[in-house]
């Protein structure tokens, strides 16, 4: 049973998402697309933060780098977006590896501040490098993704594409997490010295985790760019990094299911809580704080606890 976990995750995403794609109205479908795109970024973030314990406040910069690379290649250079996606992922991953080498010597709040500085710097650069990025006007006219005559140009069609990619990403992430590479990352998170003692190359594990997180972020960014077909600097500022972080914490850090659930929940929450008006962010902050204090393993952890509780009760009644 255990070895089919990755398959299970993929099938669950496809089945649930496919069902929703048939019953929901267009506006909800748009939110679902946003959830799927965010979920891919958050699954990536889980490698760095959930598994390897790297506290990054700059994940949105990787998403933005992927999105901008695709936007520039597909508009200014007229590339096919299908070709631009792998190039964008490659560029972002290489960038992550390059900065990872010096950056990942830092830990704790030093790493948090450095990545925050990186995200702010990214925003400043894309805002001001007008000849390349269009500045605050952003880049519009990004071509849609199409397979032959079939264009992914409405919400339902795009969702099908997004779901397939999300299912693949989730299956890959679950497999990796259960492999020795995933366990090595968790070992580095829990105790670096002990991990090094067992022969794990700590630096390499951390950089691998950061590169994986950047690759997923870039894929998410390219999907964002081909979905909205417009990119602007404020889509990738550090406030979005904090949202990715919050998604993972609410869903449950260290778990792929948590990443997907958190991304969907925090995308739909502002809609459900529209009656709060301007006070939504206060609610959001208090909810995050409450989860940190009372529910540090997130919703996935809560579900596991409830299951254990239920199991105990069953055991008691049968004995």
């Amino acid at each position, binding site marked *: 049973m255990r070895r089919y976990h990755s398959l299970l995750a993929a099938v669950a995403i496809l089945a649930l998402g496919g069902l929703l794609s048939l019953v929901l109205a267009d506006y909800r479908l748009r939110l679902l697309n946003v959830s799927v795109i965010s979920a891919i970024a958050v699954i990536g973030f889980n490698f760095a933060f959930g598994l390897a*314990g790297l*506290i990054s*406040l700059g994940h949105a910069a990787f998403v933005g780098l992927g999105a901008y690379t695709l936007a520039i290649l597909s508009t200014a250079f007229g590339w096919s977006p299908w070709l631009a996606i792998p190039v964008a992922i490659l560029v972002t991953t290489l960038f992550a590896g390059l900065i990872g080498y*010096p*950056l*990942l*010597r*830092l*830990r*704790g*709040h*030093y790493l*948090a*501040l*450095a990545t*925050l*500085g*990186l995200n*702010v*710097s990214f925003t*400043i*650069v894309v*805002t*001001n490098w007008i000849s390349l990025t269009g500045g605050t006007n952003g880049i519009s006219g990004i071509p849609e993704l199409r397979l032959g005559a079939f264009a992914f140009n409405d919400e339902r069609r795009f969702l099908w594409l997004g779901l397939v990619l999300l299912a693949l990403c989730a299956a890959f992430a679950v497999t990796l997490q259960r492999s020795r590479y995933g366990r090595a990352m968790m070992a580095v998170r829990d105790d670096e010295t002990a991990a090094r003692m067992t022969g794990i190359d700590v630096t390499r594990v951390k950089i691998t985790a950061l590169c994986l997180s950047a690759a997923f972020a870039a894929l998410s960014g390219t999907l964002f760019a081909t979905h909205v077909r417009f990119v602007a600097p404020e889509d990738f500022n550090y406030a979005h990094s*904090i949202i990715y*972080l*919050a998604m993972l*914490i609410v869903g449950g850090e260290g778990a792929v299911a948590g990443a997907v659930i958190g991304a969907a929940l925090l995308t739909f929450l502002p809609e459900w809580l529209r009656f709060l008006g*301007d*006070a*939504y*962010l*206060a609610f*959001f*902050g*208090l909810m*995050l*704080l409450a989860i*940190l*204090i009372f529910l*540090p393993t997130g919703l996935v952890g809560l579900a596991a606890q409830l299951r254990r509780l239920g199991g105990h009760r069953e055991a008691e009644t049968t004995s």
Partner: protein
Amino acid sequence: MADFIQLFINGLALGSVYALAAIGFVIVYSATGVVNFAAGQFVMFGTFAGVAMLANAGLPWPVGYAAALLAMAAFGALFFIVVYLPLRTSPVVTVIIGTVAVGIVMQNAALLGFGSWPFRLVSPLEGITIDIGGAAISAHAAMVVVVTGLLVGLIWLLFYRTALGIGMRAVAQDVEAARLMGLNVNRLLALSWMLAAVLAGIAGLLLGPMWFADVNMGDPIALKAFAATIIGGFGSLPGAIAGGLFVGLTELLGASYLSSAYKDLIAFAVMILFLLVRPQGVFGERIQDRG
């Protein structure tokens, strides 16, 4: 030359505000180990405490300033009870995200209370200029520099010449040892938070007339205060001052002599460079976690 003097004094004034924000941040970090990502929102609260007391309640200057700082001290105590105590045994990552969450709540609370329209906080020295070497310096900017200098002196006296301050430093060094010496650790920790909040409040009151009072002003200040802290050296008070002045000066001088678009990038680039090459900053801290 006159231009340069004017920019230099204004840079010192802005840097003084960053330094005050950074000092508050460092006091809390040294005493409690908490990296307060809501530090910028503390300064914003200070500015809006000034708006509430001076512009809205119409109190005269001395009374209004005192009332605003009292409110900030009370807020520091509240933060100690509501945020610090529940999170104090949590891992550093949790505390960082917790203070980020509180910062979001504070910003939203200010938005609900004051709206998104910026306010103008008038300086008591509004409209007065001083002539230095042919340059017209606003009296407010000069006052900011002087007030900051005085405060730094007072903080030094507090920490090195009073039993209270020495107790706070003892707690910062070793909580258990301080407790064994019979110090009331919780009271001293609460005082550290209150002191940090008051310093942030003073920074906010001084900054108000230089910028517009805007509920979104917290994040830019926090980023500059973080950069100042890293450059000067995490956990070091002289470092916070030197770093704050450096960031303020590069911001204003860089904007007019290099590039106004990339003025903020200079401070962050220097910060990241320090993190990579000399993470302990100019004045260094002797704590692990640097790599």
